[in-house]
């Protein structure tokens, strides 16, 4: 089995007529993803790489009631509305590629999705891919291969790099989930790890974190409590990174010292998680944790 991106995904592309939307629709179709319809307001009736375009999600669903997922390429000023439209029409998995969405919109979309039990991947994500099964995203397919590792990442390029270096030593992925690079994301690292925890086929989880936010610390705590029992290998980018912008006193007051590289490493170390110093160290550690698990 895989998580989220399985063979039962019937995908709607919101913003299909845009440059990115149209380009990646083609690549997803080539990968084998079931792209059944697209939406661009005012462009209903067109056809993008063989995919019919509708003016509204409602109209797309009327013709394609099997749609259960959506990928969003809509420009940032209109993304929140596009997500409302998808959620109000009953779509329960939404991959939001769009970057630069205003933070206040992100707070709202996370709130709204939670209230309606909808999974949002992203925003600012490369998407999700289950190699040779389904890709709802923009990642280069060639970097990924089928296997038993689950990847969860806050970074796009780094995910490709890690998938590629895992492949070199023979490890493929059940699924790779880009949770998105923004400070607020629909699915958190922990929630993604919980999905892999329940997936029989996934033997180990690779977590690519970053400085900032407290998602890594939350995951580490859950691991320490035994909520996640599968072996995790993690890499946290940003040990030598420039300090992020200071959010007045509030930033420091809220995070209470969490969010730094040291805080994250400490949390994972305390939880007994294998920590890679560089992304290129990950394959070696994966071999090790899998050996120990036997």
């Amino acid at each position, binding site marked *: 089995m895989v998580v989220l991106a399985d063979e039962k995904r019937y995908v709607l592309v919101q913003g299909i007529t845009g440059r990115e939307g149209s380009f990646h629709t083609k690549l997803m179709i080539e990968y084998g993803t079931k792209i059944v319809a697209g939406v661009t307001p005012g462009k209903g009736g067109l056809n993008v790489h063989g995919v019919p375009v509708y003016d509204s999600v409602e109209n797309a669903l009327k013709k394609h009631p099997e749609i259960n997922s959506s990928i969003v390429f809509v420009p940032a000023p209109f993304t929140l509305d596009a997500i409302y439209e998808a959620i109000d029409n009953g779509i329960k998995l939404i991959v939001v590629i769009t970057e630069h969405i205003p*933070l206040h919109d992100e707070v709202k979309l996370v709130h709204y999705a939670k209230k309606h039990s909808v999974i949002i991947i992203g925003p600012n994500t490369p998407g999700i891919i289950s190699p040779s099964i389904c890709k709802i995203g923009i990642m280069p397919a060639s970097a990924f291969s089928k296997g038993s590792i689950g990847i969860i990442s806050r970074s796009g390029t780094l995910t490709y790099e890690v998938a590629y270096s895992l492949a070199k030593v023979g490890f493929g992925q059940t699924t790779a989930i880009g949770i998105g690079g923004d400070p607020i994301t629909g699915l958190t690292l922990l929630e993604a790890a919980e999905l892999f925890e329940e997936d029989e086929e996934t033997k180990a989880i690779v977590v690519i974190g970053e400085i900032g936010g407290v998602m890594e610390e939350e995951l580490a705590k859950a691991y320490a409590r035994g909520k996640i029992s599968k072996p995790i290998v993690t890499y946290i980018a940003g040990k030598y990174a420039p300090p992020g912008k200071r959010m007045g006193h509030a930033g420091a007051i809220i995070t209470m010292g969490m969010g730094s590289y040291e805080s994250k490493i400490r949390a994972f170390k305390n939880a007994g998680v294998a920590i890679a110093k560089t992304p290129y160290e990950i394959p070696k550690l994966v071999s090790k944790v899998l050996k120990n698990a036997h």
Partner: protein
Amino acid sequence: MEILEYEAKNIFKDYNIPIPAGFTISSIDKLNREKADSLGFPLIVKAQVPVSGRGKAGGILKVNNFKELKLITSKLLKCTIKGIPVRTVLIEKFLKVIKEYYVAFTIDYSLRNIVFLASTEGGVDIEETIKEKPYLLHKVPIDPYIGLKDYVVRNIAYKLGIPKNNVRSFTFIARAMFNMFREFDAELVEVNPLALTDKGLYALDVRIIIDENSLFRQKDKLLKYISREMFRGKTAKEEKAKTLGLSYVELDGNVGVIGNGAGLTMATMDLIGLHGMRPACFLDIGGGASKARVKEAVNILLENPKVKAVFINIFGGITRCDEVALGIVEALKQAKLVKLLVVRIKGTRDKEARLILKQNNVEAYEDIEGALEKLRSLMVI
């Protein structure tokens, strides 16, 4: 995007939040005795720079007469605080403070929600205070759809021990700050301290950070308050990079790092650091960068005198490696300064890319280890 204190205070004024009377000047010649006298001494002189710890760095001073005011103002207008030149000073009436509070609205990434923060212990030491006595911080999440409820603010006012006849003013100020927070798409609206004086509550120091992703809907409104270019980095180069859509931050090492994607760029810096070298900067060319953009990115580093070597790490996905290679080559052709350069390039059309680079005498590796080894050997010489 952090705006300056006096700009933020102009917004506060428009939301009818009490702030000390004052004025700004940007040139010592414009300092006017009557204006200062009409406020009444003592006055506070505050350097307008968007950095923290300004007070401790000598950017905020009290003056007792016009002579002192002139001296201090002229000094401040000539100096630099934490690397930022002081272009404007704010001169304000000094208010006698009975008690200082801390009040802020921001977004808590962990809760993924708006939070209202307040504490009895306002002032410059707020962070240490809260670290030692976390119970002094009141943090209330706010439903983004329902907004701030008055009773929530009142309850905080009671918990802070705000005197009863100031509770209404406190509620008004908090509501106004929240409206501002939403209407300006702010990441932070902070008052520290919110001072209790014998004339009521005053926002003595304020800070507003605007979400840059919201500028498409905030720009027009902001231009009423911000006279300068809005898209500025802290240094000229950062500013240039910003206008080019590049993410660039200067650091104090000597290896310039370029990557595609924030994560990979950070990871590359980590590698540099782990190998005993120090990054001079962080430069992310983003996804799907064009030849021209890459050229500009490389140029910025080549022109930076602190940079001894440039290390480029690309994993092509949407980004085409050959496009990157062509950009590098073009930049090198125009370069005035000669730098060490090592490139690791992998992914979409990487063979073509390495060929282009080799033909132009640029060291290009497929594997990161080889590239790093080469960099190290070059840096040792």
